[in-house]
């Protein structure tokens, strides 16, 4: 008896009880669909977090000045300016793993347009900052090096600020706004970037040259940068190397011996990103294991129905044995029946799962990520469930005594 014939006999037996076969398959179907949809959702969430971080720049490093200490009270990072403009210049020019570096000075200020006002964050920086964040201009230009060198009174605006001061959709290029009563000409508007993973609105800010910031908005110490440094590595893989280079460069420039504590700190965003990713990974695993339980329940359903089927068909088994079926023929017949049920459920479940995942993805605006390995695992697992839960009923059938089976009413 070849496998094809066994399969045909199984298929015929399943066709005789269409409703029952369908309901039995439903358990596996829902299980497989759930696994695939859940993993797709988890992957979608992961991708979203990844995208959010890559929009912040995973190759991004933030250098903060050290802490102040006065009479035992330690002031925390940034409380004491230790980073100089020369440090920035050295980072920009001397380090191989560094692509861009920019100073970021910030304060809050009231902005005035013709008939509107708005309080927002004012950043003093240079054109490199936009490169580091990979932010592009929606219209106009971003800060140029001549703006920075000349201390020009120009401003690049975030979209939210444009909305508040000029009304939605207005074109502010060339117009004048006042920051702390000093007139600035609007040269550019940034692309809309939405919220940071922490809920901060990236578009609610304006950017002016760092030199103008220092001279007009917030007079700082001449030599020191009264803010932080943003640095981007040449690529994401070089981030750690860039961090080491910055640390050793600054230790050297600040004349710190091996015993001294650093008077600055370098923060690495990819650490935060990987922690977030781990979180979503855990979520995916959790969802998938809940779905796997439903697959198991589907398997028990198959076993239940196969046991009923063996009892119902005892006489058929007797007839087959009388005309020469060996125990292993009977075993194969019932095992293939269970396997067909579970595999059919698995394949339909894959379709259902992909459909569900794409529906959910379009509803939540997530990227749909159906992992082919999960599809294969789910189908394979459903087949394994069929064999595992079909084995006991099939063995029971094959061990029947032909005389008893023939006598069964």
């Amino acid at each position: 008896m070849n496998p094809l014939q066994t399969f045909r006999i199984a298929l015929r037996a399943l066709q005789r009880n269409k409703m029952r076969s369908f309901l039995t398959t439903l358990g596996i179907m829902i299980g497989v669909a759930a696994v695939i949809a859940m993993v797709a959702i988890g992957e979608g969430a992961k991708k979203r977090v990844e995208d959010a971080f890559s929009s912040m720049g995973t190759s991004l490093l933030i250098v903060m000045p050290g802490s102040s200490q006065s009479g035992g009270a330690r002031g925390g990072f940034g409380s004491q300016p230790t980073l100089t403009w020369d440090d920035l210049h050295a980072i920009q020019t001397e380090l191989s793993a560094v692509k861009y570096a920019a100073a970021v000075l910030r304060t809050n200020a009231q902005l005035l347009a013709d008939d509107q006002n708005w309080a927002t964050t004012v950043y003093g920086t240079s054109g490199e900052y936009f490169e580091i964040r990979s932010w592009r201009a929606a219209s106009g230009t971003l800060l140029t090096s001549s703006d920075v060198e000349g201390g020009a009174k120009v401003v690049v605006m975030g979209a939210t600020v444009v909305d508040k001061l000029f009304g939605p959709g207005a074109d502010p290029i060339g117009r004048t706004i006042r920051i702390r009563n000093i007139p600035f000409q609007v040269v550019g508007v940034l692309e809309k970037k939405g919220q940071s993973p922490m809920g901060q609105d990236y578009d609610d800010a304006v950017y002016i040259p760092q030199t103008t910031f220092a001279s007009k908005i917030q007079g700082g110490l001449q030599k020191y940068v009264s803010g932080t440094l943003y640095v981007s590595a040449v690529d994401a893989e070089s981030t750690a190397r860039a961090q080491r280079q910055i640390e050793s460069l600054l230790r050297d420039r600040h004349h710190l011996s091996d015993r001294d504590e650093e008077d600055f700190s370098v923060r690495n965003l990819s650490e935060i990103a990987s922690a977030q990713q781990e979180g979503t990974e855990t979520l995916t695993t959790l969802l998938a294991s809940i779905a796997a339980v439903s697959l198991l329940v589907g398997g028990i359903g198959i076993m239940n129905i196969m046991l009923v089927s063996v009892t119902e068909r005892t006489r058929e088994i007797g007839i087959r044995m009388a005309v020469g079926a060996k125990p292993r023929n009977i075993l194969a017949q019932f095992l293939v029946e269970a396997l067909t049920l579970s595999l059919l459920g698995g394949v339909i479940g894959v379709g259902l799962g992909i459909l569900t995942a794409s529906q959910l993805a379009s509803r939540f605006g997530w990227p749909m990520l159906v992992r082919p390995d999960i599809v294969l695992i789910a189908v394979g697992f459903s087949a394994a469930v069929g064999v595992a839960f079909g084995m006991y009923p099939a063995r029971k059938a094959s061990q029947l005594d032909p005389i008893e089976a023939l006598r069964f009413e």
Partner: protein
Amino acid sequence: MALLELCDVVKTYQMGDVSVRALRGVSLSVEEGEFVAIMGSSGSGKSTLMNIIGCLDKPTSGTYILAGQDISKASRNELAEIRNRTLGFVFQSFNLLSRTSALENVELPMLYAGVPTSERVARAKRALERVGLGQRLDHHPNQLSGGQQQRVAIARALVSEPKVILADEPTGALDSRTSIEVMALFQELHRAGMTLVLVTHEPDIASYASRLVVVRDGQILSDRRQTPVPAVVPPLPPEDIALEAAEARG
């Protein structure tokens, strides 16, 4: 050498604490081409004897040799193979697979023998034609009359070209006229050289055989050759012809 030889066969069943001796030392040998009727009342042990002859069961003690093979030492798989190749069964309750066509029912033993599909179908058709059901290949058992179902069963027994056909009360579920039809078919097979073993409790059915073995209390009471009564089917009264036609249509 006899085709079928039982030597001092004992079969004991354990029913809880009591052991029931269904066969108490049966010795029987059947030559090729014989038509043997085993007769006995219920509880005589004739069914147990039939199960052992049919390789569905093994003797507790004694030996059984079928076509030169010692059955008492065979494994489950070997027994299945012997049933498949050497024996053909006909049962009282037909034992056809329901919701399966006559043709596929007849194909069943060849499926387990590994006969290729085209040969299987051709042989099954030939067997059904031989029992007069060439026109009913696609009928399911519930579309056939009792006599026709039994003929499908006989075709199934014949199709694997067995050495012996075993019939266990083959007429028990049939009316007297259909019974004679089935017996006539058996006699025809006997004339063609087939070995047949028939179990029955009805003396008139046993009279169609050429040898009569009477079993009582698990032992052979008598064993003698006889001149078989020819099975002649009486002509149908006209109203019965209409009835049978209606039955055949189901």
